[in-house]
C-alpha cells in the first residue's frame, strides 16, 4: 500500500512538473500523505447541480 501511495505521489509530482530535491520530495510526500484524507473528502463531497463556483 505504501509503495502504491508513493507511486501515486511521484506521478502527481511529475504531472505538476515539480523538480524537487530528494529531501523536499520526502517532506512533501509526508505532507501529501497526511492531507490525503482531506483531499479525498473534498473529492467525495459532491455539490448539488445548482452549486456554482463562488464568484
Amino acid at each position: 500500500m505504501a509503495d502504491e501511495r508513493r507511486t501515486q505521489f511521484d506521478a502527481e509530482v511529475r504531472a505538476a512538473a515539480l523538480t524537487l530535491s530528494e529531501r523536499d520530495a520526502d517532506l512533501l510526500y509526508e505532507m501529501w500523505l497526511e492531507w490525503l484524507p482531506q483531499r479525498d473528502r473534498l473529492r467525495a463531497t459532491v455539490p448539488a447541480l445548482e452549486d456554482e463556483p463562488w464568484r
Partner: protein
Amino acid sequence: MAVSVGDLDLRTVSEAIGRRDLTSVEATEGYLARIAQHDRVLQSYITVMTDQALARAKAADAEMERGRRRGPLHGVPIALKDLIAVAGVRMTSGSQLMADHVPSRDAFVTERLHDAGAVILGKVAMHEWAFGRPATEGPFPTGRNPWDVSRAPAGSSSGSAVAAAAGLCAGALGSDTGGSIRGPASMCGLVGHKPTYGLVSRRGVLAMSWSLDHVGPMTRGVWDSAALLQAIAGRDPEDTSTRGAVTQDYLGALESGARGLRLGVLRRFYVEWSGLDPEVASAARQAFDVLRADGASLEDVDAPSLDVSMAAWAPFLAETFEYHKEHLRTRPEGFRESLRPRLYMGALFTAADYLRAQRLRERFRREVETLFGRVDLLVFPGQAAPALRFDEFPMKGLATPAMRYTAPWNLLGLPAVVVPCGFTRAGLPVSIQIVGRAFDDATALRLARAYERATDWHTRRPDPARWSL
C-alpha cells in the same frame, strides 16, 4: 507627561494626544524606548523606523499646535506587518529572498494611516511569507509571546500581536488568510479583526492567496480596532475586490450594547469539538453567559459544510504556489525547509479540486446566509487551545486542526473579530470569536465592545519583568 505608553491602549493614547496631555513625539519616544529595552527578547520588530516616525510625530504635533487634529489616529504610533508597503522602507515578508526589497510606493492602508495622521513606528515580524512556522533563530525571527516568552504568539501576524500586546506600539495591522490576525490576537490577549473581504484594500500588501487575504487591526481594545478600521476601510480603484465596499460608522455603533442582538452558537462544530482545550471551552461558555446577561439571545445553530471547510480551504494554496512558483524553481534554498513543502503542496491540487472547493464554498455561503436570517451574529471560541511552547508547535503538516476555528471564515470573507475572554490557569489568554454579515463589521464590533465593557480581561497586561530568556 509621566506616563508609560506601554501600559495604555490605543484609545487612551489617542485621547491623551487629543487633550494635549501627551504629544505624539512623547508617545513615539516612549514606544521607541520600550522597543530598545525589550525587543531583543520579544523579537517583534524587523525594522524600527526611528527617524521617519519621529519626523511624522513632530509634524503631527505641529498640526496640533496649529489647531488641526485629523482624527483619533492623529499622532498615534502604529506598527505594520512586514508585508505592508511603506515607500522607501525595506519590506521582507519574513523571507531572506526579500531581505533587500524596498518598495517605492505606500500600500493603500499605509496611505490611509498617513492621511489619518498616524505615525508608522516600524515593520513587525511575521511568519515567512505569511505561511511559514515560528522561528527564534535566523535572519527573521517571528517573535515571542509576551505572556510567556517560551511560547509562540502563533502567526502569521506574530510581530503585530507581540508588539501590540507588549506595548511596543499603540496598535498594529496584520493580515489573515486562514487565521493570521485572529490566531495571534487570541494567543496574545488582543482584539483581532479580520474585516469583510473587499472592505480593506490589499494593494501594496504581499499576497498569500488573493482570494482569501484580508488586512485588519490587532489592538488591546475594541475601540482601538474600530478606529483603525475606520481609517483603512473603503474603495480603492486599484484593488477591484473593494468595488463593492460598504463602509459604516464603526466607532458610532460601538456603545449600543448587546441587548436585542440574536446570537447563533456554532456548538456542534466548535464548542463540542473533541480537540477544544477544556479551559478555552469553559471560558467561552462563561462568555456566552455574560452576553446573555447583557441582553443578547443565544441559540444553537449549525452549518453542515463546516465539516468540509478545511478540505475546501486547502486548494486555494494553488494561488500561493503560483505566487512563489518562480522563486521555488530558481531559488528553493531561499525558503525555510519548514515552508517549502507547504508551498509545493499547492501544485498538487488539480483545477477540478480548486473548482470543487469553489462550489463547496458557495454551498457553505448559502448555509450561513440562511443562518443570518435567524441570527445577527455567530459566536464560538476564538481558538482551539492557548499559546503553544516553541517546542510544541507543529513544524510539519499542511494545516493544523486548530485552523478550523479561523480558516472557514476566510472562505466566506465575513467579518470576524476575536476578543479576549479570560486566562488559563497558566496565565495564557483565550478568546471568543464573533462573525457577522458581509459589510456589517460594525455589529460584530458592537458585540465585541459589549462583551469587553462587561468584563476586565482587556485591562490585563503581560509583565515585562518576565521578558527574559
